[in-house]
């Protein structure tokens, strides 16, 4: 039994690298949405998934390292978040599946039926909201009594905690710092996320799905949003919370957080690849910064210029036509920005690419 446990834990540990886990998660995400959506939307599937997740966590609690990390008062809400994410992803898919079937059969979607049965704000809505607020308050009180606030010593500049972690809801951003320079991961991306979310209603003028759940009628919108939210945001929080240990090294869920663990971190800039490895300019980096980074700049510019053009002409010409040019190009810009994160991640994991444009002289790196 113990041996089996050992085999399983070391197997899980050994596949625990950010690249592998990220890729597996992405593949499963797409499979669930496009291949197994029918199964995913079933009630029994939800129970199976919730049960498996609970069983996985419960069994893993037998492991000291896992327990120490998961049971930390800071991390308890994130465990709760896993269940909530599952439930609230499942719910729209579940109803969407039913609606899609109804639409195919030419019938009214579920909400249309309900919409006819209007109810009063008072007492139905307000009263039930009030009851909810009481229960939530009581729940918070119990939580605060049972799990004491994890207060620590006064901050000591000569003895910073290792790993130094942001609040859990920012761990996705912190994970981005592994791949991008702070000005991008810490300033530009968060801004784009906020701006993009604000712009969504203006970009997406598709009236379908208003007031009811559907997947088939809004495949692109739902997939894009869910990928961004589940994979690029929530999964990175899970990485940052449970799997990033001392020195921000990546640890398997059952792997002891050894302070002295070392990882090979020989990352190379694009310009070094071009000039040193490929021997252009006789292996010498040009002194002129712009010249040195010209390939990187060209690549970045091409990505944001050719990318939208390609999208418009080749990938989704119909959508482009429907939306009109201004809307479509804003969408394309946001989409490409979002895609730049997984692209950079893959480049890092595969060819150890550090920066595409590297100008440390001016703290400007892409």
């Amino acid at each position, binding site marked *: 039994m113990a041996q089996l446990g050992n085999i399983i834990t070391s197997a899980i540990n050994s596949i625990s690298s950010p690249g592998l886990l990220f890729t597996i998660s992405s593949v499963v995400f797409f499979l669930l949405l496009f291949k197994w959506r029918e199964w995913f939307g079933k009630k029994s599937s939800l129970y199976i998934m919730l049960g498996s997740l609970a069983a996985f966590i419960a069994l893993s609690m037998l492991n000291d390292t896992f327990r120490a990390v998961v049971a930390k008062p800071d991390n308890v809400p994130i465990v709760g978040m896993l269940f909530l994410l599952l439930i609230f992803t499942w719910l729209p898919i579940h109803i969407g599946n039913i609606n899609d079937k109804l639409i195919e059969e030419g019938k009214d979607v579920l909400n249309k039926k309900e919409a006819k*049965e209007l*109810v*009063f704000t008072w*007492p*139905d809505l307000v*009263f*039930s909201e*009030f*009851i909810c607020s*009481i*229960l939530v*308050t*009581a729940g918070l*009180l*119990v939580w*605060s*009594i049972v799990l004491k606030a994890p207060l*620590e*010593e*006064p*901050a*000591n*500049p*000569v*003895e910073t905690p290792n790993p130094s972690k942001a609040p859990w809801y920012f761990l996705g951003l912190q994970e981005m710092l592994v791949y991008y320079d702070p000005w991008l991961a810490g300033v530009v991306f968060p801004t784009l996320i906020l701006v993009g979310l604000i712009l969504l209603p203006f970009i997406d003028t598709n009236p379908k799905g208003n007031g009811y759940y559907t997947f088939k009628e809004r495949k692109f919108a739902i997939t894009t949003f869910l990928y961004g939210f589940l994979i690029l945001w929530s999964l990175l929080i899970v990485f940052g919370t449970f799997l990033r240990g001392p020195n921000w090294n990546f640890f398997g869920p059952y792997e002891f957080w050894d302070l002295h663990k070392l990882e090979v971190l020989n990352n190379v800039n694009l310009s070094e690849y071009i000039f040193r490895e490929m021997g252009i300019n006789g292996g010498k980096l040009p002194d002129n910064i712009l010249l040195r980074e010209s390939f990187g700049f060209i690549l970045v510019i091409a990505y944001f210029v050719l990318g939208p053009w390609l999208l418009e002409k080749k990938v989704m010409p119909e959508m482009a036509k429907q939306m009109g040019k201004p809307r479509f190009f804003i969408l394309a810009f946001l989409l490409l920005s979002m895609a730049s994160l997984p692209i950079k991640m893959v480049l890092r994991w595969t060819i150890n690419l550090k920066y595409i444009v590297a100008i440390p002289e001016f703290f400007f790196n892409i």
Partner: protein
Amino acid sequence: MANNPNEDRFYKPNRLIKAFAISSIVMLVVTLWMVLDDFGRDWKGWQLEYFRLQNKKYNEWITEAKSGIDEAKLNEAKTNVAETDAQLKNNSKQKEALEKKLVALTTRSKNTLTKYQTEKAVFDVRKYEYEAVYGHDEAAGHAKHGPKQEAAKKKLDGIFEKVMALRNIANSAATEKENKEKEIALLVAAKKEAEKQQKLLTAKLDLLEVGKKNAAISVEMLMRSAPMLDMASPTLKLQQIVLPTIRDDVFFAQVPKVDRCITCHMAIDKVGFENEAQPFRTHPRLDVMLGAKSPHPIEKVGCTVCHDGRGSATHFTRSAHTPANPEQQKSWEKKYDWHEQHHVIEKMVPLQYTEGKCRVCHRNSEYVPKAEKLNSSVQLMKAAGCYGCHKIEGWQHIRKPAPSLKRIKGKVTRDWVYKWIKNPRNFNQHARMPASFLQSNTINNPQFVAYQEAEMQAVTDFVVANSEDYSPGSHGSLGNAERGKELFSTVGCLACHQIEGIERKMGRFGMAPDLSTVGSKVSKDWLMQWLKNPKHYWAGTVMPSLRITDGEAADLSAYLLSHKNPEFEAQTVPQADVEMQKTVLKLYLARDPKLAPVTREKVDEVVNKMQSHEVTQALGKNAVMRYGCFGCHEIKGMETMATIGPELTEVGSKPLNKFDFGMQHIEPHANYAWFKAKLTNPRQFDHGFVKEYLDLLRMPLYGFLEPDKESLTVSLMGFTNQKIDPPAALTVNAKIHHIEEGLRVVHKYNCQGCHNVEELYQALGENDPKREEHEKDKYNLEGRILKYYEEDETLGPPWLLTEGARVHGPWIYNFLQNPGDHKLRTRLKVRMPSYNLPTEEWNKLLSYWAAHGNVEFPVSENAPVKLTAVEVETGKKLFNKLACASCHTVGEKPTMAEMEGGSKGLAPDLLHAAKRLRREWIVQLLKNPQKMVPGTRMPGYWPEMQTPAPEILGGDSEKQIQLLTDYILYLGQTRGAPKSGAPAGKVGAKPALKKTTVGMN
């Protein structure tokens, strides 16, 4: 709106109401839970427990106080009260009349006073008004006298007289009233006095009764501490000591220390709780710590400055208590759900190491009074020579702990040096020198072993090559070993040295080398020269001259050289392998900054150019520098090199994550455990690592015993970075400064090897179960040689506890210049050595004694004694009556018969007294000899000032003592101090204050 409430509703109202009811009840319960959870602190339970205990204690104390009251006296006092009361009753009419009058007078006095005060207020206003219109101009020098001023002045003048009159009336009314009161007081005086007497008898009891009442647990008391009500004036409340001058460093600011320990440890500074269970036990040393009369009152020092831990916490676990041992840890885990507080940096120091924290304030003190554990720890640290490699702030003045190697080839052979370096304890198991080579991080790697072999050869050759020539001269043949042994054990060698064959009374880390195998080390001529004059070989030695004659030197040498180590002698020294030396030298050169960036070719080129002896010297020098030999030994050209180890000045405050635990699992994961592990095997933290040869740890192995490690840890825990300002900090005044400076000299020359200097030893209480065990340690700190005089301490070197108050500066200076000339206790075989100290050190020593004895600066003399013939006669009578001369000599040498049959010659010669002793000290000695010289044979003839000779001087003890003192001084004054061996010398001869050559007898 629908009429039927249940129609057209998404939710059923009844169900909603039920859900609301249930959730409200849940909310109420949870809110109550929250209030209770917030209110129910552990410390409140402890305080309640304490109140209960206090109650019990008060009952006990009251019973005890009651039994302590003299019933007869109390009854007498009671009768007295009754009697006086009866008397008062007889005069009751008179008293009543007086009291009636007093009432009237009091009323009058009050009324008149009110009138006066009312009018006075008006007067003050008038005064102000006048000043306002007149004063400013007057002050500016041009007073105006207009109508406005005139009007104000008139008003003021008008009221002035009136106020004065009223004041007079009020005062005379008050006087009348007071007089009447006095009359009444006179009447009741007797009764009042009687009552006072009675109260005095029961004062303690009454006080206890009041205390008991205040401490009682009552409904009111509990109500005051109930939730919500406790905001006003709770009975269970947080107790804290704020220490503005002891600050906690919270990294961005320094905040005053706040200790709330007394919230639970409520009886910590109260007498009477010594045997209670924690947290209510009294501090075990109230005389030193926390007591109001101790040097460290609780409100001045608090708790965590010594104990550490999180002073502001009031929860057992969160205040970072640290168990002293695994058993305690287990019991705490069970009892208090204790667990380690990982985040807390300043965890409580386990009790066995707390004493080290004295050093927080007594930072550089040579010794800390009453801190026996710490003092012995510091002594051990100095003897082991930790400061040779580790810098310790305030220890820089201490001389190097090991002998100079500047003339080593004149003392021992090259082979001896090699074998000694290889493992000093192979030569002598009691050797102090630690082993640097072939330790646990190298011994299992054949390559490293070969490297070390090469290094040992090179170090040996380097040391020998850097030695000057030295010739001890020729000193005749050896004498009689038997006589040598007798001499060795009596003359004083044992204060510093130990040797096989004479019982070992000290640990390994003494002042001087163990001599058990010295015969395999030095030559006959070297030894004889050394014994006669140690400074001939090494000017910096602290070994004094014991005025050894040629014959004695021959005997001693015969004895010492008979101690050999044949196994060591039989060891062979392998041939030096120059090729291997080259290999190792290359490792060193690869790190030589002068060759950076280094290549194999560069190094090869350098080494290939060298002659083989150059390789040896270069490697030797590199190795000596790497192992830090010069930290303890003087080596030519390396006198001023910086120590090689990490500084220890603040090691007790070093964050735990800065300690290299390597792959070792040390329980508990704490600095003290690490210290002990490091002292056990310094190299163990290399185990399991892949390291280059020159990266290996190099702290040598001392082979400390468990108590040694424990003791050293005490000091290390005390080397902290805590900063303290006065008044909590120790203020170094001139007295403390002189004592410090003097003690440095004392410790440098190991005076405490023979003499009891400071009474560092602290006897445990009479009833302490460990007392007997503890008594064995009596001379571990000082007066060590006295261990050899168990049967009669007075045959050993004298105690010096009151030396400063005892002797005159010039006398002791003169004595120490050449003790052989001033033999005081004729019977002692142990010799006071001749130290040839620099004048600076003599001054420090004398100033120290003066400061310590609270007397004038060194130079002082007794006023000349003038006695009449009658007084001399009476003094003599007293002198003979008390038989002073049965122990003391008066200038004569005791005969063999006197010595064998009695105690003559054990006590100092009294002819010395006039020049030697301070008059006041003699008086004190006569009054209570044990107080001035603990353990002395001298009897106290005037116990509690009861005279032994009622017929002399009318039996007046004080007069007798004064006269005897004068008589003793008179003896020396008229007959002069005797020269050693010679009959009593010239009258009044003044000893010359000149330096005599040391080493010649």
